[in-house]
């Protein structure tokens, strides 16, 4: 072994061991756990654990609440990704405008919600969304719109939580998009301008193709993020009203750590993983096909 090699193992050994022990090993064990009926009885004696094959997965497909959780999570992603990416892009385009002053100041202020704790800001938004005393309903009445029972109406609860999530995360992709916008080739822009292309035309045919890969990457990561929503319903709605905000992860948490059906919960975790992987792959494939990448 060379001196360099020995040093390398000293430097990487500890973190590799931890990755193996608290990540890779548990992921493999998750596969094993998902084909057992591991439950609270297993805490008393290992003998109570039995191999059930795909029983957990089949059981899940027969559980209405699991389907509900899947549908809710899908709705979060389908509504949330365009909302969040749209606002990020709009804010980035605004910040990119040559005439805007004090850009670093705006940038930091718009980004600030991203670094705060989800739990703490979810508490704040619970009160902002309060039906009677919340600022949001006050703003609605001020412009003559009817008030909404945001967190009490099963049809409004997901949009309500999405307002909060969008507020919290849009700053992240806004920063990513401003960097991408700064890299749009200026000579191409100038040529389009000289050719008389409209503002929209320039955006559509110069800006959009240039930032396409960044947009795609951001939306792939956003989908994965939205599929993992947990703390927001846990704090704001406890999964309600009428189970309208039970997400896959919320379901997994309840199944695993409230009812202690760890085998079943592990199956949920694996299904979530496969879903994230599938959606990510489809998006990347779409991107390649349309040559955004």
């Amino acid at each position, binding site marked *: 072994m060379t001196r360099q090699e020995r040093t390398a193992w000293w430097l990487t050994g500890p973190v590799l061991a931890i990755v193996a022990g*608290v990540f890779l090993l548990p992921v493999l064990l998750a596969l094993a756990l998902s084909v057992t009926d591991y439950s609270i009885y297993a805490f008393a004696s290992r003998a109570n654990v039995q191999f059930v094959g795909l029983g957990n997965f089949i059981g899940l497909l027969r559980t209405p609440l699991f389907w509900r959780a899947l549908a809710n999570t899908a709705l979060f992603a389908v509504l949330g990704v365009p909302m969040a990416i749209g606002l990020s892009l709009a804010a980035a385009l605004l910040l990119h405008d040559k005439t805007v002053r004090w850009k670093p100041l705006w940038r930091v202020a718009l980004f600030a*919600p991203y670094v705060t704790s989800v739990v703490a800001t979810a508490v704040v938004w619970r009160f902002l969304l309060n039906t009677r*005393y919340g600022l949001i309903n006050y703003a609605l009445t001020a412009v003559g719109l009817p008030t909404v029972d945001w967190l009490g109406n099963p049809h409004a609860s997901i949009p309500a939580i999405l307002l909060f999530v969008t507020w919290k995360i849009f700053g992240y992709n806004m920063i990513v998009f401003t960097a991408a916008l700064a890299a749009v080739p200026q000579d191409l822009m100038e040529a389009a301008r000289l050719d008389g292309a409209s503002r929209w035309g320039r955006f559509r045919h110069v800006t959009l193709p240039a930032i396409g890969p960044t947009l795609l990457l951001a939306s792939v990561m956003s989908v994965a993020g939205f599929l993992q929503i947990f*703390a927001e319903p846990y704090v704001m709605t406890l999964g309600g009203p009428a189970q309208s905000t039970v997400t896959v992860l919320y379901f997994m948490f309840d199944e695993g750590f409230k009812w202690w059906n760890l085998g079943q*919960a592990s199956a949920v975790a694996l299904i979530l993983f496969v879903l994230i992987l599938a959606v990510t792959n489809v998006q990347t494939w779409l991107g390649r096909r349309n040559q955004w990448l």
Partner: protein
Amino acid sequence: MKRHRIRSLVANTAVAVLTAVTLVPLVWMVTVSFMPRGASSHFPPPFWPERWSWENYYELLVRRNFDGAWFDYRIMPALWNSLAVAAIATALGLLLTVPAGYAFAKLRFTGRERLLKVMIAALVVPGQVAMLPLFLLFKELGLVNSYAGVILPGLAGIFSLLFVRQAALSIPEEMLDAARLDGASEARIFRSIVLPLLAPITVTLALFLFLGSWNDFLWPLIILTDQHKYTLPVAVAAIVREHAADGELMMAAAVVTTMPVLLIFLPLQRYYISGLLSGSIKG
């Protein structure tokens, strides 16, 4: 020229309005936390306290004696727990991943490329998949309800390692080889040449690790069972599920949880944002 001025006015106003709307929840959080109990439950909702009061902070943070029994919301202990957990997680995280990231970038050793591939592949696996077996493993090891149990999973810093590696790749090879020819040991090279060069991204990484640990919720919620060991987000979530109606009190709890990270973030935001960009470009 006139069109230019109108455009400037519109764009600047739009940015200012967007920023104001974004900051309203945070400002309102602070003002409501200083309102006397019940003052925020009025229509129209007050934005500014009529009378500034510390009573919510007093109730939240100070342990009081009711008829011989001590009572508190355990926010102060949670604050110290969070601080200690985040500080230790950050220090250990840096200690583990900065040298390893450098080794993966600049030292030649057998299996390096293969290990790298494994780790990049592991990045796609969401952490939640590991959580249930990890809980059972930690139960066997007696780590449930311990700070070690909270911190340990976060130390499997694949992202941090790749982040450091990315930065270390740009260290010129000649510089290291020259030091080797001069007879410097590998440890000496790391300390005297590599570490100073990696200092800025170490600050960035420290910020990521600290904020990540401070804001972490699901895993501490799972692994901590004793209220006295709760970190701030877990403690706040527990209170809000019981005392949701006490708006002013909950706002004070939110202020205590968010302000420390905002105070750390604001002076160091340049490091955070540059780190965010280098991470996203790599993909």
